[in-house]
């Protein structure tokens, strides 16, 4: 499936560090991510794992104390003349990036709809803003398009709502408006940074279904940044699990959820109670994420990993290939490693999950 479709965003060996008062924080340590046209990639990890920074780099939104040490972000698009172009977003001048890429080709939906809208502007104006800037639309055309977008994202009475201010809308409605703004210039790529964390479950489900629906209609490629595995299961085609500035496991969504290989992924899956969890205690990954001020020796996850091997302290594991699309960075997959299976509780849970699937087939 990935061979047939074209890679649209290709992040290669990205390495970013931040200068702070306490020293240099090596936040991203060699990240590779592929995004193909029309597909959805989810980046999963705890706060501080570097998932947001990776995407901010692609948008040119990095803070001024950040340095890109190496790597490239290749973005392939078809320009106005119908010619295919590939650019390195990290090398583009900021001005070009702002005028031609951000908002127009790559749009972003932020976490908190309360703070990402301008409280002094009507939502209609905010939606039209991008169209004036990027598409040189006339006012009438822009308004018609804005109302069309409001309808698309499922806001009733779009004509009336057009003149509303953000505070007159509920949280779910506001996030819909943010999505409408992101879609206003027909982007190729939509980056959703924790789009539903601030919303409650019923609205979360509706927003996710909405994004999936629009994705199909507009052939968008979507990147989700999230720590909620339930969301990932619902929307993603491919999953990248990130830990301490590295991708530790990557695979398609079924591989990650039904045959996880990395102990960190085991931990994440076990920590989330499903509705059949009856154990006395929830599994929690012991300890806390490493402080990247001090470059970890060997595997960054070793200190929190109950299955750590002696070699984990010394050398960082490379990505071992499990299947054509599935890779994991853990020494457990090395041919010489002792045979270690995932924890029994998780095994039982995955078994239950597979059984549940059969009911739906």
């Amino acid at each position, binding site marked *: 499936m990935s061979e047939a479709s074209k890679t649209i965003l290709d992040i290669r060996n990205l390495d970013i560090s931040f200068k702070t008062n306490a020293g240099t924080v090596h936040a991203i340590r060699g990240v590779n991510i592929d995004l193909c046209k029309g597909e959805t990639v989810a980046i999963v990890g*705890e*706060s501080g794992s570097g998932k947001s920074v990776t995407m901010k780099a692609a948008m040119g939104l990095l803070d001024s104390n950040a340095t890109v040490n190496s790597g490239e972000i290749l973005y392939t698009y078809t320009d106005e003349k119908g010619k295919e172009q590939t650019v390195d977003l990290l090398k583009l001048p900021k001005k070009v990036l702002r005028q031609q890429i951000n908002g127009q080709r790559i749009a972003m939906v932020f976490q908190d709809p309360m703070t990402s809208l301008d409280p002094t502007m009507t939502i209609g104006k905010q939606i039209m803003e991008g169209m004036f800037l990027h598409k040189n639309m006339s006012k009438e055309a822009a308004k018609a398009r804005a109302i069309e977008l409001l309808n698309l994202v499922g806001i009733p009475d779009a004509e009336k709502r057009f003149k509303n201010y953000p505070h007159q809308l*509920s*949280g779910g409605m506001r996030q819909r408006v943010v999505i409408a703004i992101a879609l206003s210039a027909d982007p190729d790529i939509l980056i959703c940074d924790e789009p539903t964390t601030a*919303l*409650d*479950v*019923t*609205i*979360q*489900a*509706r927003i996710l*279904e909405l994004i999936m629906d629009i994705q199909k209609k507009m052939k968008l490629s979507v990147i989700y940044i999230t*720590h*909620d*595995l*339930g*969301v*990932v*299961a*619902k929307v*993603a085609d491919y999953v990248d699990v990130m830990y301490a500035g590295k991708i530790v496991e990557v695979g398609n*969504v*079924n591989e990650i*959820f039904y045959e996880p290989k990395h102990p960190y992924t085991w*931990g*994440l*899956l076990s*920590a*989330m*109670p*499903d*509705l059949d*969890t009856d154990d*006395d*205690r*929830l*599994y*929690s*990954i012991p300890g*806390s994420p490493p402080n990247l001020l001090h470059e970890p020796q060997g595997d960054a996850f070793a200190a929190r990993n109950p299955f750590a091997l002696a070699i984990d302290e010394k050398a960082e594991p490379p990505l071992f290939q499990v299947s054509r699309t599935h890779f994991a960075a853990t020494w457990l997959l090395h041919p010489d490693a002792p045979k270690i299976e995932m924890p029994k509780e998780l095994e039982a849970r995955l078994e239950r*999950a597979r059984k*549940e*699937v059969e009911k*739906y087939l």
Partner: protein
Amino acid sequence: MSEPLLKVENLKQYFPISRSYTVKAVNGVSFNIYPGETYGLVGESGSGKTTIGRSIIRLYNPTGGKVTFNGRDISGKMDNATRDMLRKDMQMIFQDPMASLNPRKKVADIIGEGLDIHKRYASRQDRADQISEMLKKVGLSPEHAARYPHQFSGGQRQRVGIARALIMQPKLVIADECISALDVSIQAQVVNLMKDIQEETGCAYLFIAHDLSMVKYISDRIGVLHLGYLVEAGTKEEIFSNPIHPYTKSLLSAIPHPNPEVEKRRQSIAYDYATSGIDYAKGTEHSVGGAHTVLATDAEFDAWTRPSIQQEKLRGT
């Protein structure tokens, strides 16, 4: 069953906005919490679950109804002894660990504030001992006492919030969305901690959240709130295996499962109060069996319970 620790009867909480407009946040909610149990309140934002918690602990003055805690009425005017009892025996853990800790105070003083106010220590040494013991109990080290909140991570800060609530040895802790702002793996740590402390001290929790899988995990009994009405209540097994009210069904269907194949095929059930034709104000409490109750009119109750039996049959064939 023993005497309930907290008895909420027909609690009403209105907020007058202007002369002609009043927000009715809580409309006659009743439930009991027994010593040592965990009662979960779930509902979407704006359903009044936080307001209930705040009315019970008297951050608001209830508009109507009766709240009895520890055998004493705490909903009306209280005498000094009752207020002291309430302030000591009921504590709250807040949602946002960033905003609920005073940034200018050291952790020792944040945790010790209750001790200071109620003079619950014999000497300075005793106070310091109590604080460091509490810090150990919530998984922090006594050296952390001299630090400021901003020096902690989110999960650690929430532990400070828990320590502050528990140092008063409360009988009831109101945990208002206390894990919503935390990462998945940190959530598990905090929930485990809360369970351990409950086993050790026997305190009861009123656990307010919108994450249903976590509520199911921690609670003994659950109440489902919508628009200020308690639409369904029961033990967690009753609610999750046999939801009656359409709102509960929609809420349960919205829970994301960490199971991609199922998740991609499943559609959540939509529920819109305005078009559903249900009037909560007309409903009365109907018993489904056991502790399970649902808010409905007689006709609605019949309609909701009958098709579920038919569905059972369909599933059987």
